[in-house]
């Protein structure tokens, strides 16, 4: 295993310490239980926006804590959802009296831990709403399964909800924005290589040099199918087709196009991917009005990409363009 780490069991702790050294102007970090809150938390009268999940997806979620986005992030162990005590303490730390929104990615573990945390927080008199993102079209949705996974839309929802909360929208309204993003956004990803979970020490799955995994999950969960390597343009078609046809997106729709690197993919490749994704969208008459390109929801050092489309309306455009000041996303200030 080739990683720039010390001991696998120290990865989360030491990266949190790095964040403290680097961004104490933006965030505060609490240890045991681990959570990151914006430096000025709690902001009185403002809805607190909280998310969390396993580590290994950086900058999500900790890199999105700050003005205009998340009030708190709870990092679990690598690829393991955080625990209710982390979420409870973080919820208390960011509760400014207007309630707290939990943005939860749809994974059984995350759901159950956030459920328990919400129960505990409510028991302490804090108003909590939870919205579950489940935008990964690689997984067939069904009442009889765990349903679709929450991926790229989570990042976009965190930005939109953070902006809405900054405008002092009510918990109900901020949660409504989140549901809107959940309903209007779809994603799909693929991997060229596996990733190696530090405490496991070997790749989560074996992928031959001439093959790729289409529909990969951000924890290295195997995807829809394994195929021979293809040129980038064909790969983008394989990802865009299911994304566009799910809701579906229609001619005339205005969307945000998010091309996300999974951690080991260089930017030059992401732009090649974006190029084709953009052309496919335009071919369908879908207008790309905003974009995000880079590694924002990653899977350790996995080489691969995910594409997310989110249908935008005027309110969402306003919220997207609103100022944000976090370690990983920053504009307008």
């Amino acid at each position, binding site marked *: 295993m080739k990683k720039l780490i010390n001991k696998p069991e120290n990865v989360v702790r030491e990266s949190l310490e790095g964040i403290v050294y680097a961004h104490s102007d933006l965030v505060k970090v609490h240890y045991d*239980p681990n959570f990151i809150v914006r430096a000025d938390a709690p902001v009185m009268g403002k809805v607190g926006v909280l998310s969390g999940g*396993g580590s290994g997806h950086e900058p999500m979620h900790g890199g999105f804590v700050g003005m205009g986005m998340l009030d708190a992030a709870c990092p*679990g*162990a*690598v*690829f*393991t*959802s*955080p*625990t*209710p*005590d982390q979420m409870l303490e973080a919820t208390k730390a960011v509760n400014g009296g207007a309630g707290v929104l939990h943005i939860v990615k749809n*994974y*059984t*573990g995350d759901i*159950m*831990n956030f*459920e*328990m945390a919400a129960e505990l927080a409510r028991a302490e008199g804090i108003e909590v709403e939870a919205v579950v993102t489940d935008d990964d079209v*690689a*997984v*067939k949705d069904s009442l*009889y*399964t*765990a349903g679709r*996974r929450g991926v790229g839309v989570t990042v976009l929802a965190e930005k939109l909800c953070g902006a809405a909360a900054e405008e002092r929208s009510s918990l109900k309204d901020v949660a409504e924005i989140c549901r809107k993003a959940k309903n209007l956004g779809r994603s799909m990803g693929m991997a060229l290589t596996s990733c190696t*979970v530090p*405490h*496991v020490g070997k790749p*989560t*799955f074996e992928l031959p040099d001439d093959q790729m995994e289409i529909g990969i*999950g951000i*924890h*290295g*969960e*195997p995807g829809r199918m394994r195929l021979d390597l293809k040129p980038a343009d064909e790969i983008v078609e394989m990802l865009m087709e299911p994304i566009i046809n799910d809701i579906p997106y229609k001619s005339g729709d205005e969307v945000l196009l998010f091309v996300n690197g999974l951690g080991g993919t260089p930017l030059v490749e992401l732009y090649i991917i974006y190029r084709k994704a953009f052309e496919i969208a335009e071919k369908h008459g879908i207008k790309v009005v905003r974009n995000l390109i880079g590694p924002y929801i990653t899977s350790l050092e996995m080489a691969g990409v995910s594409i997310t489309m989110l249908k935008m309306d005027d309110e969402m455009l306003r919220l997207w363009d609103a100022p944000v000041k976090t370690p990983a996303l920053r504009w307008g200030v």
Partner: protein
Amino acid sequence: MSIARDDALNWIKAIAVVIGENSAHLTQLDADIGDADHGVNMDRGFKAVMKKLPEISDKDIGTMFKTIGMTLISTVGGAGGPLYGTFFLQAGMKTAGKMELNLAEWTDALDAALSGVIMRGKAELGDKTMVDALTPAVATLKQSVNEGQPINKALELSAEAAKKGMEGTIPLVARKGRASYLGERSAGHQDPGATSSYLILKAASDTWKDVGT
């Protein structure tokens, strides 16, 4: 005879040992159809439990189980944390104040634990989860109670039932948890949670093999 508080304590210690020994194995099973962390998570949880034991070794069985449940909830994470946490919390409620358990009480405790897991995870038999190992184990226990089996024999039978349930998950297509994302591709692999559940019940049978009627 019955399961004394110290027997219960020894069971917990035995679980910590067996989970430690099988951590890599459980993680590998999870790598095949999940995200390669079940063994590590459970091991982290039961190591934390071991640290807690001194505080509770003089308490009643219910308090002991409840504390273990809380500890697992705050240290395991993932799906395993809330599920096994609930498992012990519920068993703890049933055994509140008790310093020893007879077979019927043990059976009630496990039955409540299983119901807790089902309540929390909403899995049904055949979804390829820990429920597939726990359900037959609890069923056998109830039967043993009716048949008036000696405790050690009953535990042995329940462990065997759990083992069959665990092995029975191999051909199944997962409908709950991460493995469900794989659809058909989840078939042919043994469920890690069912495996840890078997190990936990097996540990009870091994620890209490000398506890007769």
